[in-house]
């Protein structure tokens, strides 16, 4: 096409360098962060040789252990709750010719994406403070419910996208063969929907795992997750231990996002059995 000609209609002066610079800028800080997590010395700017010591230190740090466990409990619970709710919501809102209240439902589901996180965080702080006084309960459920809420849109999007591309005929056939709605859902809909469900739950997990603002406002004393623990550390002298924790978290996120990408890339038609 245009490539073989001397005059490339797609070329714009300076765009390629800016774009390449953009990728460099995007990755350089992260790469340096990872590199210095392996630094032998205390510095995060002067390289003194390779060492695993900061990973060992972080691993042995009891606060980090507690925060990791808490992060995983919250992210797993929130992802499970958000994904289940999102599957049901997606079944109700897709493949239908629109219904009364659709705008309301759509706005509500997408609300966590539109409202500044700090505002939701403040709202939850106030609301949960009232409940805490009234019930005396200060456990983990506040964090789990709060995380579930803002994870719903992230779980909902890939599930809905998958559902929209699916073939209605199979479910119709299942119903014609006297399958109960539940049986049709489990045996026909869910297996087809599965990549979307998996993708949605992974996205929800990553979003929950990475949350700082809402967690910081909602948590009770002693309920630090990894990000809020790290935020607290940043007020002090920073050692590569923070880099080591960051690198571990980055690895989890990147792995899940790439898995998500591969899952959603194989669209409905490709995975047909």
């Amino acid at each position: 096409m245009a490539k073989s000609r001397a005059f490339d209609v797609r070329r714009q002066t300076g765009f390629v360098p800016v774009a390449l610079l953009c990728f460099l800028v995007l990755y350089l800080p992260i790469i340096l962060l990872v590199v210095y997590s392996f630094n032998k010395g205390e510095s995060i700017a002067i390289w003194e040789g390779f060492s695993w010591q900061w990973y060992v230190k972080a691993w042995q740090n009891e606060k980090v252990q507690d925060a990791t466990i808490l992060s995983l409990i919250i992210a797993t619970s929130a992802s499970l709750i958000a994904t289940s709710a999102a599957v049901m919501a997606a079944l109700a809102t897709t493949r239908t010719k629109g219904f009364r209240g659709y705008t309301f439902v759509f706005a509500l589901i997408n609300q966590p994406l539109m409202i500044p996180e700090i505002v939701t965080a403040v709202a939850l702080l106030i609301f949960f403070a009232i409940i805490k006084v009234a019930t005396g309960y200060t456990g983990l459920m506040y964090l789990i419910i709060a995380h579930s809420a803002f994870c719903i849109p992230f779980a909902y999007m890939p599930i809905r996208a998958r559902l929209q591309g699916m073939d209605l005929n199979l479910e119709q056939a299942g119903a014609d063969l006297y399958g109960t709605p539940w049986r049709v859902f489990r045996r026909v809909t869910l297996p087809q929907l599965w990549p979307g469900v998996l993708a949605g739950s992974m996205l929800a997990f990553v979003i929950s795992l990475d949350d700082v603002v809402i967690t910081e406002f909602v948590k009770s004393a002693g309920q630090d997750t990894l990000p809020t623990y790290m935020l607290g550390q940043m007020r002090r002298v920073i050692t590569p231990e923070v880099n080591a924790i960051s690198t571990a978290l980055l690895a989890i996120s990147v792995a899940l996002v790439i898995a998500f990408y591969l899952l959603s890339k194989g669209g409905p038609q490709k995975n047909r059995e």
Partner: protein
Amino acid sequence: MTQASDTQATRRRWLLLSPALLILLFAASGPLLIVVLYSFLTPGDYGGVVWKFSTDAWFNVVVERDFFDDTLSFSDAHLSIFWRSVKLSLMTTLVAFIVGFPTAYFIATRPKEKRDIWMLLIMVPFWTNLLIRTFAVMEIIRNEGVVNSLLIGLGIIDQPIQMLFTEFAITLGMFYVYLPLMVLPIYAAMERFDFSLVEAAYDLYASRWRVLRRVIFPIVKPGVIAGSILVFVPSLGAYVTPRVLGGGKQLMLGNLIELQFGQGRNWPLGAALSITLLAIVMVALIVYVRAAGREEMSHG
């Protein structure tokens, strides 16, 4: 379809929707109403509120009462924080556009099978922890960081340049964390772009700049508007980035709000400030929806 099965379908639909809606009403939308209520109450002595109606919090958003003689004046502290939030968010959006537009263009002009990989490269950092990315920026620009060490090592400067805890640091950080939100919608608008239009323009002796401005830009404009909103809105409500990179010296709205629930302990004021932030965001979103709607009309 019969009336009965219609009602049944409706019932089934709302039943399926109920878990998601309940969670969202309980832990996202409902509490916002309580914030509105709290903004009209009197602050308690040690945080919290006293259940007495008052509009003081709303006055305090922009006005302060002199402690000694009760005169009213504009609250310079609050206004300067509002101004800084808007200024830095606009700058972030502008820089993100200047870098994001060519990048989206670059990706959209790659061979079809490679575009996904380039986009993945843009999106991977976005899905990683915002705090970690902010921290990565902090490590680079701090006094003992890579940039200063490099400049001193090369003999260009003697003393490290103070970049951390400045407005520059916050803008750089927000640009860094929100850039993918600019590239994504511009790319989406550009991907379907028909380059035969550009060819036609060149045949008519248009310059490259003119082609960019008069042919490409008008068509991808909805993407640019969407990207700008997607960057501007979270920048305006940013909390983590100004806290880490502004170091408590350069406050933005998000930090001012947090202060009211911490040391300041004026919950109603914090509530009023939150609603103000929400209102600004809503105005931005409405402007966006209107603009997108107009584009839709003129092209549809």
